[in-house]
């Protein structure tokens, strides 16, 4: 049975002057999938995210969300339609407590404080941050900040969650925890698009992987197909994976 197409990106390009940060990128994401986007630094992964979520206005191409055209839509409208994201550099509100941060996210669905607080507490229980709900955002470790950012994104009650390098800079233990959290989020029926450099995690969680290089999509496939593709090894993964694939 075919699943619904959640995100449909067609011919997406983003030019900065004469430089194409993204060039003619096509891909789709089905409902309930985890799709990873990998590629070397400067490949255009974050630009792609920014174009899809309204933070950049794409130069050409089209992005649809459940059939609805969201190309060049304002970022906050994209959120209210049901696409949430995190940033490579953690974005939290530093003079708010953990709970208030998550409440602010929930308010896109609730006009009043109380239901937003109930929802925020429910989400903090889910993500395992409830014990730290009264801490200031700035008092958290990097791993907890990333977990908080994911909680804030979940609080907007999205249908798609887009994570931009949620695993960078974490210890092995913290990495395991965030992978478990992602799996748990997925079990709830969430669709995920993930930009990630940690290949072990990409291999473990992804249904499909999209590889970008110099702004172009060079390959798409299952994690296994991707790590054994010579072009991907050449552009990104390096010889460690050449040995594995032979």
């Amino acid at each position: 049975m075919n699943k619904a197409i959640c995100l449909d990106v067609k011919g997406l390009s983003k030019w900065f002057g004469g430089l194409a940060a993204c060039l003619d990128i096509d891909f789709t994401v089905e409902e309930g999938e985890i799709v990873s986007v990998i590629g070397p630094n400067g490949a255009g992964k974050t630009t792609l995210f920014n174009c899809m979520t309204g933070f950049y206005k794409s130069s050409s191409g089209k992005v649809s969300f459940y059939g609805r055209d969201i190309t060049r839509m304002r970022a906050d409208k994209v959120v209210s339609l049901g696409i949430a994201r995190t940033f490579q550099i953690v974005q939290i509100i530093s003079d708010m407590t953990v709970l208030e941060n998550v409440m602010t996210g929930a308010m896109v669905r609730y006009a009043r404080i109380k239901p937003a607080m109930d929802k925020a507490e429910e989400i903090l229980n889910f993500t395992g941050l409830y014990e730290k709900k009264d801490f200031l955002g700035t008092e958290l470790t990097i791993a907890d900040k990333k977990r908080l950012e994911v909680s804030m994104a979940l609080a907007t009650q999205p249908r798609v969650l887009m994570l931009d390098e949620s695993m960078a800079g974490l210890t092995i233990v913290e990495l395991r925890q965030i992978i478990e959290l992602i799996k748990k989020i997925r079990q709830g029926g969430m669709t995920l698009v993930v930009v990630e450099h940690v290949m072990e995690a990409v291999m473990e969680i992804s249904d499909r992987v999209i590889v970008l290089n110099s702004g172009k999509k060079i390959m798409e496939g299952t994690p296994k197909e991707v790590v054994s593709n010579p072009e991907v090894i050449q552009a990104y993964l390096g010889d460690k994976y050449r040995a594995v694939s032979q």
Partner: protein
Amino acid sequence: MNHLTKRQKIAAVVTLVLALAFPLVFTDTFPIHVLILVYMFGVLGMGWNIMGGYAGMFSFGQAAFFGIGAYTSSFLLMNFGVNPWIGLVVGGITAALVAAAIGYPCSNLRGHYFAIASIAFAEIVRVVFNNWKLVGAAEGLSLPMLDESFANFMFHSSKLPYYYIILAFLLIAIATCYFVATSKMGYYFRAIKESHEVAEVLGVNVVRYRLIAIMIAGFLSAMAGTFYAQYILYIDPESVMLLPISVQVVLISMLGGAGAVIGPVIGAAVLIPIAEYTRITLGHQGTGVDMLIYGFLIMLISMYQPAGVWGLLSSIGKKVK
């Protein structure tokens, strides 16, 4: 934003009772005049607090809204005999609309860029009024003497009615700020203050909420402006639109504790009496001395207590607990 603790409620009630009783005990006009200024700057500070302290738009141009309020009600009274209370509302709405008109094109300006734009805007408004014949240009407006009554917003025999009116305005401003701080709006303003990106990614329409903050601030500032016009009965661009007024508003809010509801009131209560007393006792030495003391105070506060006097008080409060 937490709701008030029991101790804060008691402190608020005690302060209010003291404020109500003060002019009955101290009947000299000077202390009453100083407190009237404290409350008036408290209202201005509350407006600034909403847009600066909460929403992070550091305006150095509040005098423009103060002046627009003063001019609107005075102009309407002089030329069309419009009651000052109606003039107050019209002035507030005018200031809010002007605020939105200038705020919209400034939607992407943050931090010091916004501050610079606000100074430029306020100076342009001042220069326009300084040369605008219709509103008296540099000569300003002298309000007509009306019979003394609450309906006329004019009293000649005593400062007491002015005292209670501006106290009521201050309570309205505090209530507005409290409402904002404890509602969705307050959370969204704080998100915007952190960064536009974090606000947008949480689904906040940054442009709309910034405009709301600016308009509330514009309205409150204009209320204070109409009060000033009715109190002094004479306005000119020098007295209601000068940059030092805007700076004073910022200092009061920062010193008291920007981003805390009561911060600007504390700031006004500390700074205005110092300004008035130093002006009177040291004024003959030149105008700079009170500003020197301000400068010194601001340096002390920003070095040792960036959260302002309120931050100092609440950290002491926590230790006592």
